């Protein structure tokens, strides 16, 4: 499979088409909240239920997903997707990170109460709330995450003024 320019919108539509339960986190989540940042991948936390993993597996097959950074094409399987780990994949629409859990072990079930629903292109998507995204970035052990904190905090501040 040839590496292609990330197509975030197409990448987002696919799991939704298959009714996969997931929450958008990371950079795309920040952009959807109005943060002026750029990212090149889509980060999602998926539900680990058996049905969801089966649907997710179907999507990944359609997306020709395989692990990034391997010379051999290694495809994710349902068993590994059920783990709390991170699956850094490349797809025909660009990089896709499937995250079993994020900082401090937050999984889909834990995050759903900190998420909100947005609608675009006639579809409904669930994204992490900006407040919780900020909390999670604060806890991040990665400098690259903490570097975006001032922008996220100011975005929240400006959003609050508009309410």
């Amino acid at each position, binding site marked *: 499979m040839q590496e292609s*320019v990330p197509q975030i919108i197409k990448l987002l539509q696919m799991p939704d088409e298959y009714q996969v339960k997931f929450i958008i986190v990371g950079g795309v989540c920040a952009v959807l909240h*109005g*943060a002026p940042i*750029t990212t090149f991948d889509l980060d999602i936390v998926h539900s680990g239920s058996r049905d969801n993993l089966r649907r997710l597996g179907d999507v990944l097959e359609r997306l020709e997903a395989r692990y990034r950074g391997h010379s051999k094409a290694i495809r994710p399987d349902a068993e590994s997707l059920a783990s709390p780990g991170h699956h850094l994949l490349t797809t025909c629409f660009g990089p896709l990170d499937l995250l079993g859990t994020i900082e401090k072990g937050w999984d889909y079930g834990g995050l759903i109460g900190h998420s909100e629903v947005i609608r*675009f292109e006639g579809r409904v998507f669930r994204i992490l709330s900006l407040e919780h995204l900020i909390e999670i970035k604060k806890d991040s052990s990665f400098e690259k995450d903490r570097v975006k904190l001032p*922008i996220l905090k*100011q975005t929240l501040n400006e959003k609050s003024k*508009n309410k």
Partner: protein
Amino acid sequence: MGRKNISEKRGGCDGLGDVGTKHVTVSCETAYSEDGVDLTLIRWMLSLTPEERLRVLQDNILSVQRLKDAGICAADHKASSDA
């Protein structure tokens, strides 16, 4: 001090910035937060719908890719010229 530099750079206060397809009134007093974040960009992004925000992201990705490709072409051209 920072505010003075910002004011000079922006060439005056309370201008009307043409940002994409929407107009945003920009006040130099509040153009930047105390920690240096450009609030005008945030306000512009907040004026867009989620779909429009994603399109901005997608356009940014394409622009970076074009620059990257241009760099590769330039490097290839230089290599073939040097050979």
